């Protein structure tokens, strides 16, 4: 889908302005140049207002002011003034889509009032094969618009340069995860799973005449399901608090690193490096502990059963030595002889006379011995297995001792580093500058809060795991109970179908989440490395499983906290463009002041690379004269299909802006 034109009437400084966008596949960049305050961001606002009824990119100076053009109100005193924005798109099938929103105002005794419209906004019209379709209004129109540009993810299509700089400063891993969730609509799955589970439980609740056993399980299930929701809310709350504490800690570290004292800067850098090393050590300690637990899990049953195993082995060996195993004859063979009444030497053993009876007794004695060793094959096999088991744990004490030694050494190292961290903190607290001392005290508190919250999060996660286990157990028990009576067959069918559907939704969500994370990481990384002007400095952009973004240097050290404003902007631009490209929505991109924070040299590099990374996407850049330098213009010359200049006037009658097409 591409933008065809936007027509603004009485919207903020635009009294009657129509802008046609470039949309040929050859040159699909539109440049709109204007000074600061001329109306670039309000153009972005006109788009979001028309589509969603909200100005998402509002400057603080406009907050609280009506969006209608003041000059028009002054001219038409006491008359109705209509403010409207029409946006025409060209759909992927070549057909046009017109979205309009209008709002009328009237000034009455110095007060501005909204005039009700005959139809609820917005309005959408779709071009058919021959003619335009009937207009749709209100909720139906909004639903259609949302399907073209989902409101939740508008910021990944309509970028605000100013906000982009702060993007990674403000956003925690959790919020980035949220962004990935929004862009891939995975939030829908979460709600769907939650509601499907509720409905499933409701089916049982609504069934009349449940047996007391089923009723009991259902009640327990109900309690756990409700508590799980509260537990998860609690976890989300703790996680948010932990992230806030971590953000504050980072912010204060940044302040210390940028402080005027060289000594404090050095100490803060040392602390950063130490914390990174401690983090790596912590990972190693965790790996070793996991290894230790695995060895213990494997060895402990054998260690505990060692004595009985040794006794069993001794017994089997004794029988072997006595020649009882393996047996000379199989029981079935002897039984066969007794049944037939004939020995292998052809003698009669039918008990018919004294001799025959005596021979029969001899054969029966063989049967007794053979029966005792009937399990001989299994005993021989078991003996081999017992030997292997006893052998397998011979190295166990050495392995455990070695791991414990390694663990102790790592732990000692970690303690030493923590003690160094303490010394650094004490030294910073003795700084001459009061502000620095305060920052350090606040930082220390935030760090402690973060650690405490981490412990609480761990506990809460454990509770949730237990609760989920209990729910699963109840569900299995419930199904077993329902199976006992055929009158529950329909209910059982419904529950099984719900379970399958919940499982399917969970699998889909996890798989897509993983796929999207990997794709976003790769695309953001490629784009960042292409756009960044410092070559061979950074490894790229990395997103871990918890959605924390990092920008490692080539040598592995973390660089995100030390990026310049321009570099941060490039990082955010790369990340957002990556999110956009994996979103599955083909929507034009508009970027407000994309190069404002980039110094002169790297601008050309960005301008040259941007079209490559946004290939196939219609792009509009809202730029200042300072940004749109000769080099940038040259670099983008092949891509730009239309260029405009915003002429802005701020005279007595109010602010007005006109847009002029330039060659």
């Amino acid at each position: 889908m591409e933008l065809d034109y936007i027509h603004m009437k009485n919207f903020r400084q635009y009294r009657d302005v129509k802008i046609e966008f470039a949309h040929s596949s050859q040159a699909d960049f539109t440049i709109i140049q204007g000074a600061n305050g001329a109306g670039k961001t309000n153009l972005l606002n006109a788009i979001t207002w028309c589509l969603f009824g909200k100005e998402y990119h509002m400057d603080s100076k406009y907050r609280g002011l009506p969006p209608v053009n003041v000059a028009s109100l002054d001219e038409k005193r006491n008359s109705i003034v209509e403010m409207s924005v029409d946006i025409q798109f060209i759909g992927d099938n070549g057909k046009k889509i017109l979205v309009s929103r209008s709002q009328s105002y009237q000034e009455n005794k110095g007060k501005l009032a909204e005039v009700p419209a005959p139809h609820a906004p917005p309005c959408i019209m779709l071009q058919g094969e021959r003619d335009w379709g009937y207009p749709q209004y209100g909720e139906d129109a909004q639903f259609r618009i949302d399907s073209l540009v989902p409101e939740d993810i508008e910021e990944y299509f309509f970028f605000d340069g100013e906000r982009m700089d702060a993007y990674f400063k403000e956003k925690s891993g959790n919020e980035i995860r949220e962004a990935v969730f929004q862009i891939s609509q995975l939030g829908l799955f979460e709600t769907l799973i939650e509601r499907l589970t509720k409905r499933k439980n409701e089916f049982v609740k609504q069934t009349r005449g449940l047996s007391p056993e089923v009723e009991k399980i259902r009640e327990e299930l109900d309690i756990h399901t409700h508590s799980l929701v509260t537990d998860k809310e609690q976890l989300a709350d703790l996680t948010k608090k932990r992230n806030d504490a971590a953000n504050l800690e980072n912010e204060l570290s940044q302040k210390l690193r940028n402080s005027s004292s060289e000594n404090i800067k050095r100490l803060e850098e040392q602390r950063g490096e130490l914390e990174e090393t401690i983090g790596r050590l912590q990972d190693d300690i965790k790996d070793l502990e996991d290894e230790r637990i695995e060895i213990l899990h494997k060895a402990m049953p054998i260690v505990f059963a060692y004595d009985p195993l040794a006794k069993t082995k001794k017994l089997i060996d004794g029988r072997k030595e006595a020649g009882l195993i393996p047996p000379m004859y199989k029981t079935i063979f002897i039984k066969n002889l007794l049944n037939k009444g004939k020995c292998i030497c052809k003698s009669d053993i039918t008990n018919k006379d004294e001799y025959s009876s005596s021979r029969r007794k001899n054969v029966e004695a063989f049967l007794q011995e053979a029966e005792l060793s009937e399990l001989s094959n299994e005993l021989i096999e078991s003996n081999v297995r017992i030997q292997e088991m006893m052998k397998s744990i011979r190295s166990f004490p050495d392995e455990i001792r070695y791991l414990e030694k390694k663990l102790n050494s790592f732990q000692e190292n970690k303690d030493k580093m923590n003690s160094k961290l303490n010394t650094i903190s004490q030294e910073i607290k003795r700084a001459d500058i009061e502000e620095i001392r305060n920052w350090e005290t606040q930082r220390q508190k935030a760090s402690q809060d973060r650690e405490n919250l981490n412990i609480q999060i761990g506990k809460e996660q454990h509770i949730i795991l237990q609760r989920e286990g209990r729910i699963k157990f109840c569900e299995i028990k419930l199904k077993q109970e329902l199976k006992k009576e055929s009158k529950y067959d329909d209910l059982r069918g419904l529950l099984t179908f719900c379970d399958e559907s919940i499982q399917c939704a969970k699998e889909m969500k996890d798989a897509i989440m993983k796929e999207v994370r990997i794709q976003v990481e790769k695309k953001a990384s490629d784009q960042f490395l292409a756009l960044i002007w410092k070559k061979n400095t950074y490894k790229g952009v990395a997103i871990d499983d918890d959605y924390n973004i990092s920008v490692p240097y080539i040598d592995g050290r973390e660089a995100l906290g030390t990026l310049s404003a321009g570099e941060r902007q490039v990082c955010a631009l790369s990340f957002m463009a990556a999110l956009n490209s994996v979103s599955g929505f083909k929507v034009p991109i508009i970027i407000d002041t994309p190069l404002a924070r980039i110094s002169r040299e790297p601008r050309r590099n960005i301008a040259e690379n941007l079209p490559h990374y946004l290939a196939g996407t219609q792009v509009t850049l809202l730029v200042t004269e300072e940004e749109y330098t000769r080099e940038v213009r040259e670099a983008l010359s092949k891509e730009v299909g239309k260029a405009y200049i915003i002429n802005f006037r701020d005279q007595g009658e109010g602010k007005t802006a006109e847009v002029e097409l330039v060659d």
Partner: protein
Amino acid sequence: MSNVNKRILDALDKSSYSDEVKELIRTLLMIELRHKGDKNPRYAEDYDRNIKRLAKFSEAEEDR
């Protein structure tokens, strides 16, 4: 006009679950999209109707 992300629909089509499960998920995603942003969405009736409708087919298939 479908407005569920194409990536989701493709993944759903490729999954090995029964057609009834896939249809239920597709339908419920549309319902969720429709009610997104509603303060108190009345989803229960829509959910129950679709679950009951598709669970029946699913059982019939199993019986065969």
